[in-house]
């Protein structure tokens, strides 16, 4: 492999697959598009393999704009897993709901490409372009149920608020360029370290944080999340909840840890407040939801708060905990969305809490799997959610943020209420009215199996992956 393109090899695989799909879409057979999903999945899996082959290498390319390091590769793995599971879940789901098309898979791949690029980017311009590539694809994907009112609302809301947030981001980049004379992260770090930080730099960073805050849906930039998740196809909601957030945190961590070390006390104080607000608002509002997709949306907001605890804690423990948690969160959340997507009640998706009454009796396996995913979201051992939260909150305590850890643990207790409520419905309520049925789908079940394996494996034996995560953040902390 040519040394110049090696740092972007996983990205090239995904991009190449997307281009191939665009051509294959024009060829027969024209009826079903399922084979395109298989090709897309093969591309993502190939990218995952390339990532594994490249593991441990470090390189830069294209005038230092793109980096290859353990940090980027770790996020490549997280994002590829999210994309692969979402593609598996999409195959039957899209056909069932009449939205299967070549463009769907192409856009999933383009958004995946944007996410991976965010982890590899070492220049604010490139981060912005990657952010837009990811977001533009997701805006369209969120609106695939065009004929439904909620689908249109979902896409419109996501697009308008997202475009607004992108504006903040670009303005921040411009101010930082004005303050330091560069958009390259390394040169910004050098210029910012040379003299005391001026207001231009601090305001610029603040605007960047607004842009990132929207993408990871932290409070007060979370308003779009429930409506978008509710109206978007469930498979797309899973991708927005996992991949796009992981990508947002990848770029955020790289910018904060490697570039803005100079003003660390400032952004730590700011993120402390954001973390507390995000956790609390997400959990409290989630209690009131009777729609499971909306509940998971608020729960994902709350989880962003937990991850921010790790960002505030900093260091190899905190940042490593963030990476580990994002992997855990990806498996768990895709799994939870996956079970919802396989359930149907009266030709409609089973998204209401009532639809889950007595599910343990009619579909014991699916109910048990969903229960395990929900327990992992709650943070119960032996699931991965427990290990993830343990490392995040432990890092906060080690760094002296005792109160932050206390608030986070209290929040987890609040969250247990609404996660366990679904389990109570499944196991202790009788079913009413039309029974909820499960859709036969081999691909969907395979995705659930992989997600469940991830949740249990990372829960029982977290140490190897955690060590990888901590090694991955080491280059940023140098």
């Amino acid at each position, binding site marked *: 492999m040519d040394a110049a393109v090696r740092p972007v090899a996983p990205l090239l695989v995904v991009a190449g697959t997307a281009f191939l799909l665009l051509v294959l879409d024009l060829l027969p057979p024209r009826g079903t598009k399922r084979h395109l999903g298989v090709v897309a999945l093969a591309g993502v899996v190939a990218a995952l393999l390339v990532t594994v082959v490249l593991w441990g290498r470090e390189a830069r390319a*294209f005038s230092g*704009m793109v980096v290859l390091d353990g940090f980027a590769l770790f996020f490549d793995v997280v994002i590829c897993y999210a994309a692969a599971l979402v593609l598996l879940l999409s195959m039957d789901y899209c056909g069932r709901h009449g939205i299967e098309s070549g463009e769907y898979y192409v856009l999933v791949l383009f958004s995946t490409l944007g996410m991976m690029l965010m982890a590899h980017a070492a220049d604010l311009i490139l981060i912005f372009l990657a952010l837009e590539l990811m977001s533009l694809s997701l805006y369209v994907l969120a609106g695939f149920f065009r004929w439904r009112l909620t689908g249109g609302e979902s896409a419109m809301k996501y697009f308008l608020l997202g475009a607004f947030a992108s504006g903040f981001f670009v303005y921040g980049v411009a101010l930082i360029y004005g303050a330091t004379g560069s958009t390259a992260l390394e040169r910004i770090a050098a210029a910012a370290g040379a003299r005391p930080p001026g207001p231009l730099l601090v305001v610029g960073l603040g605007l960047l944080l607004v842009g990132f805050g929207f993408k990871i849906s932290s409070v007060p930039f979370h308003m779009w999340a429930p409506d978008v998740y509710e109206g978007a196809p469930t498979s797309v909601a899973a991708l927005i909840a996992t991949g796009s957030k992981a990508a947002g945190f990848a770029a955020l961590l790289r910018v904060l840890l490697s570039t803005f070390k100079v003003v660390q006390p400032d952004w730590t104080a700011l993120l402390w407040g954001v973390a507390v607000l995000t956790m609390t608002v997400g959990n409290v509002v989630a209690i009131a939801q009777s729609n499971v997709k909306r509940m998971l949306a608020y729960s994902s907001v709350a989880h962003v708060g937990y991850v921010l605890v790790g960002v505030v804690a900093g260091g190899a423990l905190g940042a490593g905990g963030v990476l580990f948690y994002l992997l855990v969160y990806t498996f768990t959340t895709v799994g939870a969305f996956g079970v919802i997507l396989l359930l149907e009640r009266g030709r409609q998706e089973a998204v209401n809490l009532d639809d889950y009454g007595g599910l343990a009796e009619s579909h014991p396996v699916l109910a048990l799997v969903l229960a395990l995913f929900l327990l992992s979201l709650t943070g119960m051992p032996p699931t991965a959610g427990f290990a993830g939260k343990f490392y995040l909150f432990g890092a906060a305590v080690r760094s002296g943020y005792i109160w932050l850890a206390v608030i986070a643990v209290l929040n987890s207790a609040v969250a247990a209420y609404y996660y366990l409520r679904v389990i109570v419905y499944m196991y202790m309520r009788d079913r009413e009215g039309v029974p909820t049925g499960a859709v036969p789908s081999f691909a969907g079940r395979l995705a659930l199996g992989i997600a469940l394996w991830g949740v249990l494996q990372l829960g029982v034996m977290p140490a190897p992956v955690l060590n990888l995560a901590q090694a991955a953040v080491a280059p940023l902390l140098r």
Partner: protein
Amino acid sequence: MALGVFLIVAIVAVASALALVLRRNPIHGALFLVVNLGCVAVLYLLLGAEFLALAQVIIYAGAIMVLFVFAIMVLIPGKEETGPDPLRSQRLMAVPLGLFLLLEIALVLWGSRSGGGVGGAASLPQVGVRAGGIESVGRLLLGDYLFAFEVTSILLLAALVGVLTLAKRKSE
């Protein structure tokens, strides 16, 4: 001199931006946006970025604004745009202004034919390798920023696929 120009242009830019937000009539707002974009182009010129200034005028003040005006006229056929023109008296101004433009064009053509003078080839600015010039922009775009340039093309492709998807679904 530069400061004076900057002050005038900056004031016009801010005023037109305010007017854009405050006018109720969307067409007036769009026209104020043209003024604003033109002022920004002049600011680029003051900074020595000729390429950016040209691109600003051609792409933003030209192409994108035409789209804006089209969209407003197609989407909002309100009375405000189709009613009687309140500035009817100003139409008479078109005749002397048009004659003035004709005179200018004639002068430039005449000057270039006789060589030297106004608009002769010798008076064209020398394009050198300096910040903001076309050559330096080209070198940056296909050198240091090659990767970002290529990512932009993928971004546009994704946008294209997205638009086609949404439009196709509409007709079904």
